[in-house]
């Protein structure tokens, strides 16, 4: 089976077989095919190939449609609140970080004023208002479920900024230029 030299028409044969050409192009191809045995053979081959490539598929389109609608609608309902939760959870983590920093600063302030204490009640009295204030906009710790609380605690434990121990005494670095060199 040979090929016709008219490349333009040959390019259009699959579209002609598929019935997707506009009227002018269809007429042009039909006129050529009427006088060209090679293109008639190729067109017959294409028509046969279309039948072979379009077997009756035993698919249940109604079931697919039901599944698609159910999955898409459920997905929309499921995703919307989760985005809100994700945003809220991020806000909680951010607020917790700020609260931790605030508590650290408050503790540092107490220490700086010479009121260093190991008493947990005193430390709580200083730090908890700062933590509560930072978490208040997102509903506070009571809103968190167990997993979120554990994650938050893990985050706090892993923060490098959190002091692991009481800081060492501050050593003055000012040097009086008129004084004698320290031995």
């Amino acid at each position, binding site marked *: 089976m040979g090929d016709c030299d008219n490349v333009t028409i040959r390019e259009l044969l699959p579209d002609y077989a598929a019935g997707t050409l506009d009227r002018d192009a269809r007429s042009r191809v039909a006129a050529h095919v009427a006088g060209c045995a090679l293109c008639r053979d190729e067109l017959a*081959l294409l028509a046969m190939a279309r039948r*072979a490539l379009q*077997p009756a*598929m035993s698919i*249940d389109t109604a079931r697919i449609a039901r599944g698609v609608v159910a999955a898409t609608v459920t997905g929309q309902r499921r995703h919307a609140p989760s985005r809100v939760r994700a945003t809220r959870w991020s806000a909680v983590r951010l607020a917790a970080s700020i609260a931790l920093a605030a508590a650290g600063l408050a503790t540092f302030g107490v220490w700086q004023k010479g009121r260093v204490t190991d008493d947990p009640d005193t430390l709580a009295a200083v730090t908890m208002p700062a933590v509560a204030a930072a978490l208040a906009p997102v509903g506070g710790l009571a809103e968190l479920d167990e997993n979120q609380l554990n994650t938050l605690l893990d985050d706090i434990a892993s923060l490098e900024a959190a002091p692991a121990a009481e800081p060492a005494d501050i050593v003055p670095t000012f040097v009086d230029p008129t004084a004698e060199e320290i031995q």
Partner: protein
Amino acid sequence: MRTNDVSQDECMTGSDPGGQESDAALVERWQAGDERAATTLVERHAAPLARFAASLGVRDEIEEIVQDTFVRAFGSLGQFRGESTLRTWLFTILRRLVLDRRRARSRRPVAVPIEEGDVVTEFDALDAVVADEAERRLAAAIATLSPTQREVFTLRVGEGLSYREIATVAGTTEGAARVHYHNAMRAVKEFLDG
């Protein structure tokens, strides 16, 4: 020239030349909450997608992968820019899903990679419904094509896609799609002449 290159017109008129409600109009109705529009779109495109999946070597999960294609498409209609037809976009999504599954399987220790023979088996199965001897020989000829040639030939001849649409679906160029098609056609003719 091709009457199926009418995506812009469809958007304007809401119906195609055949009088059917256009894909664009159905998509709009679906986005407005009309579930019947989704059903119509599925009924319109499911069979071509199933055929394309079969041509890519999918055997047992055709319905599942067709459904996943629609779910993906409907879930990301905001990303559909209308530069191609909805059908082309669906073909593209399905092809990506098939490749993703193939890659996922190849990573599993118990995976059975899809070989050339698997696709041939698909066309062997096709033989059962092809009564005519000439058509059976043609199916055998198509089965001898390389996967790329078969994909392009299927989209061009079986589904009537343009080279531009095939390039979009297969992630290649129009020129490459044209070359693959003509090589496939030559191979089919040689098989039938031999």
